[in-house]
């Protein structure tokens, strides 16, 4: 028995021992009840998605797999697969896990010639590992499964000159490490409506095909964790609040993000089939990768479905994540990122604390609301860019980084961009109110701040009190700029712009549920006006919310709520009515009504129980 075999045996024993102490373990979680049950509804959507994707002719492994599974157009699928395995120009981390995933999924249907080509790919192509967290997850998932599939092969049989045993061991170590980090201090590329897919898809592939029961279980638990993380920020298909990384189009139109299709599949929201809507582009950055969920045997625990969809009561949820690896110009490798979410049945207000938490694509805060119309969000940002910011995270020469990133991401240096981190932006949120302050350095390349206000708003009123009131259906937004501003009309939105370097905005959100009519909401809001005398020297804003809470916020200084200092360092890993976890514990507890599901990443066990109602 080689080292690989020994490792597997060891894991089997370990896992078996763990299994003995399970209180209750079930991949399917809570039982399904009839055709209206979440499980039955999921099954319908799953079949529907496979049916739709199998009619597509996109060049990709997911389209091919869908065609084989449904038995539709298999001749074309075989030709496409042959093309994908013949084209030596394709490689890298995206190929690494999708090629082996397709192989393992379809191996009983594939001719030997195709199988040989897929095997050959891992011998001759560079499965480049990349430089981001999602790259490494994809890469090592692919290497793990490929080494598992072709064990006991020597170094000459692999593109990197490592044997099957060496590749398996390395991939196993890293995947375990990543899942441990993700379950204790969080992802670096956290809560991303776009990059969600490139974590979820390899994790589901790992779950599906890992032979080691412990790895399979850990992949299942990680899938649960990622879905639960999405669920608490989810509203009607929208991934709400602050994001580590997202693309401008998806920020400005949340339901166009790939995560929305995952929400449709697993949470059943939005109710409409997104690919039929103009506001969603299913091919948009790999949207069909959701088909990997439709082909997976992974089933979302019903408790996560409930967490994602029950909005009967507003709630506050906080999280601690981590900043992506900082390689220079920073005091520590992974400082914490703090998230705050206030969720209601019709809107969500969510934020990160501000500052540079991610390069390029950070989205710091927004209010996102349920709407039949596109562009259902409002937010502000400082469109910051600098080579030094990028050099914090990438090893290339600092002076080139802006140009290089701009070539690929197209918008990085654009003064009108809708995604950005900025060292000159900080937030303070309490429930449905948020203060966002800006203190833009004289040397900064962009000296203005922008706000996104969609044209799909039903009303946008500039009140003589200084407040700007917006209404989108039953959702109301009050927005108070501290400094002069202008409106710039654009295709889908009004761009609110203020070119004052020391600046800020106060926002409160309400709804007809809480505030009655729009007029009543306005009446309540105008009673309180932010106090910011001498702001250019103190950088301090006082604000008493319409609920009577007193917020005081100084840029670079303290945040106080009703006289008490708010300290982000007290934030837990997850803390809210639905998910609780201490940072570093490796134990994530989900709660819905009297049901509890606990993921114990230390022991690699899942427990479920019902607690007595209080």
């Amino acid at each position, binding site marked *: 028995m080689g080292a690989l075999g020994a490792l597997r045996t060891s894991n089997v024993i370990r896992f078996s021992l763990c299994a003995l102490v399970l209180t209750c373990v079930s991949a399917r979680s809570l039982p399904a009840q009839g055709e209206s049950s979440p499980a039955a509804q999921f099954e319908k959507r799953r079949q529907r998605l496979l049916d739709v994707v199998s009619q597509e002719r996109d060049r990709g492994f997911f389209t091919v797999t869908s065609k084989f599974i449904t038995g539709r157009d298999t001749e074309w699928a075989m030709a496409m697969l042959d093309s994908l395995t013949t084209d030596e120009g394709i490689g890298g981390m995206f190929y690494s896990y999708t090629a082996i995933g397709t192989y393992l999924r379809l191996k009983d249907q594939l001719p030997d010639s195709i199988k040989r080509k897929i095997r050959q790919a891992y011998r001759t192509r*560079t499965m480049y590992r990349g*430089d981001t967290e999602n790259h490494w997850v994809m890469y*090592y998932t692919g290497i793990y499964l490929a080494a598992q599939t072709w064990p006991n092969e020597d170094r000459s049989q692999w593109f990197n000159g490592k044997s099957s045993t060496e590749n398996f061991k390395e991939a196993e170590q*890293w995947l375990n490490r990543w899942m441990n980090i993700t379950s204790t201090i969080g992802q670096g590329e956290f809560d991303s409506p776009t990059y969600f897919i490139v974590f979820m898809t390899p994790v589901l592939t790992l779950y599906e095909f890992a032979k080691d029961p412990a790895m399979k279980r850990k992949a299942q638990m990680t899938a649960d964790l990622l879905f639960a993380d999405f669920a608490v920020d989810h509203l009607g298909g929208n991934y709400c609040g602050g994001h580590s990384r997202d693309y401008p189009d998806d920020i400005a139109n949340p339901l166009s993000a790939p995560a929305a299709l995952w929400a449709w599949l697993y949470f059943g929201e939005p109710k409409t089939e997104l690919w039929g809507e103009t506001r969603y582009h299913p091919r948009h950055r790999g949207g069909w990768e959701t088909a990997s969920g439709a082909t997976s045997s992974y089933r979302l625990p019903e408790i996560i479905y409930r967490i994602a969809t029950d909005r009967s009561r507003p709630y506050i949820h906080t999280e601690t994540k981590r900043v992506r690896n900082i390689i220079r110009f920073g005091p520590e490798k992974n400082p914490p990122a703090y998230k705050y979410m206030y969720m209601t049945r019709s809107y969500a207000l969510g934020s990160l604390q501000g500052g540079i938490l991610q390069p390029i694509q950070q989205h710091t805060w927004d209010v996102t609301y349920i709407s039949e119309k596109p562009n259902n969000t409002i937010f502000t940002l400082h469109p910051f860019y600098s080579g030094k910011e990028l050099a914090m995270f990438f090893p290339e*020469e600092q002076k080139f980084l802006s140009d290089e990133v701009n070539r690929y991401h197209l918008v990085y240096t654009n003064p009108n961009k809708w995604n950005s981190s900025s060292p000159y932006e900080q937030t303070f949120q309490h429930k449905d109110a948020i203060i966002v302050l800006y203190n833009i350095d004289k040397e900064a390349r962009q000296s203005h701040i922008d706000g996104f206000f969609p044209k799909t708003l039903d009303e946008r009123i500039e009140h003589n009190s200084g407040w700007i009131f917006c209404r989108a259906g039953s959702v109301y937004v009050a927005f108070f700029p501290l400094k002069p501003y202008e409106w710039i009309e654009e295709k889908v939105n009004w761009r609110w712009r203020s070119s004052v370097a020391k600046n800020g905005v106060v926002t409160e959100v309400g709804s007809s549920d809480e505030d009655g009519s729009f007029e009543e909401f306005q009446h309540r809001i105008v009673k309180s006006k932010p106090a910011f005398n001498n702001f250019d020297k103190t950088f301090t804003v006082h604000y008493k919310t319409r609920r009577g809470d007193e917020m005081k916020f100084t840029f670079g200084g303290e945040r106080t709520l009703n006289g008490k200092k708010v300290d982000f360092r007290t934030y837990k890993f997850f803390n809210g009515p639905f998910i609780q976890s201490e940072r570093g514990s490796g134990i994530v507890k989900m709660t819905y009504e009297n049901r509890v599901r606990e993921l114990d990443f230390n022991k690699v066990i899942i427990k479920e129980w019902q607690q007595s109602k209080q």
Partner: protein
Amino acid sequence: MATIEAIVSVVLVLLVGGTAPPDSVVGNRGGEAQRSYYAAVFLNRGHVSGGVVSNIGLFRRSPGDTAWSNIYRRNLFTFGLGLWKSGSTTRQYIAAGNGLHRSVDGRKTWRVLTDWHTEEVLSVALDPVDSAVIYIATPFGVFRSTDDGARWQKKMSGMNSWFVRKVMVDWSDRSALFAGAEDDLYRTTDKGEHWTPLHVGVPGMEAVVQHPADPKHLLVGTSDDGVRVSVDGGKSWKEGKGLPNTAFYAVCVSSDKQTIYAGGYQTGLWKSNDRGFSWSLLWQDSEIEAIYTIFVHPDVPRHLMVGTSGQGIYESRDGGKTWSKFGLNGCHVKQIELYP
């Protein structure tokens, strides 16, 4: 194998003797027909990172060739090269985005020596005698292997920043190394166990050079402050006069051991004839955004090449008076070498 290496080591010690840079790690003399140019290509235009890239990796141009050909990996982000040679034993190294690659069979097959513990490998340094001792610079510090790349240990004691662009063995003392880090240039005299800052005075070490005729003569290119020079082994530093205060990624001592060249971000190519204390502009082309690397032919000092950002390689055969393109247009060329 161990016996052969021991014999090789003895021969190398006799040859090197601590008086001049050993051929084992800096290139070899030989007939032109036996050598080819090798280029490390990091990026081509239009790409930062991702899955599918072509036209990057290790390239070769042999005598008689009219173009460069990619001989290893079409999508390998390549930061640098290294060669260890003794007698008929040759080991070539590639410092790349996914680790340190090594070939021991004349570039027919390669093996990645590092694993997930190291991220990008930005440069490689080789012990001139013991081929089993390898050093790499990474964004998270210097790593050392003493068993031919089987295991790696992080060696950062005494360093104040973990980003290290460049690591280099002192040719006069194989136990000593220099590490160009984000905050300073560091030196160790015990093979990386302990590092001491040399207090260059400005941050951002981009290029680190030790003069081949004088081990105490050091030059560093910095990320914002031109070139700094020391002629006392790093005890004191002086600013290279005449240079713009910007990034200098490349510093190179000519094979005549008199002239020193430097280039960087929007700088053109600069030349010094007084050990790097004062500089004059030799050549500038508005098409070239930056010079990443400078190559001087080991036998023909008038034969120069520069590797650029996005414009491939330029060549001059008259000491830098006139230049022409030498291929790899569109590529970011990080290093050029002439190897057997």
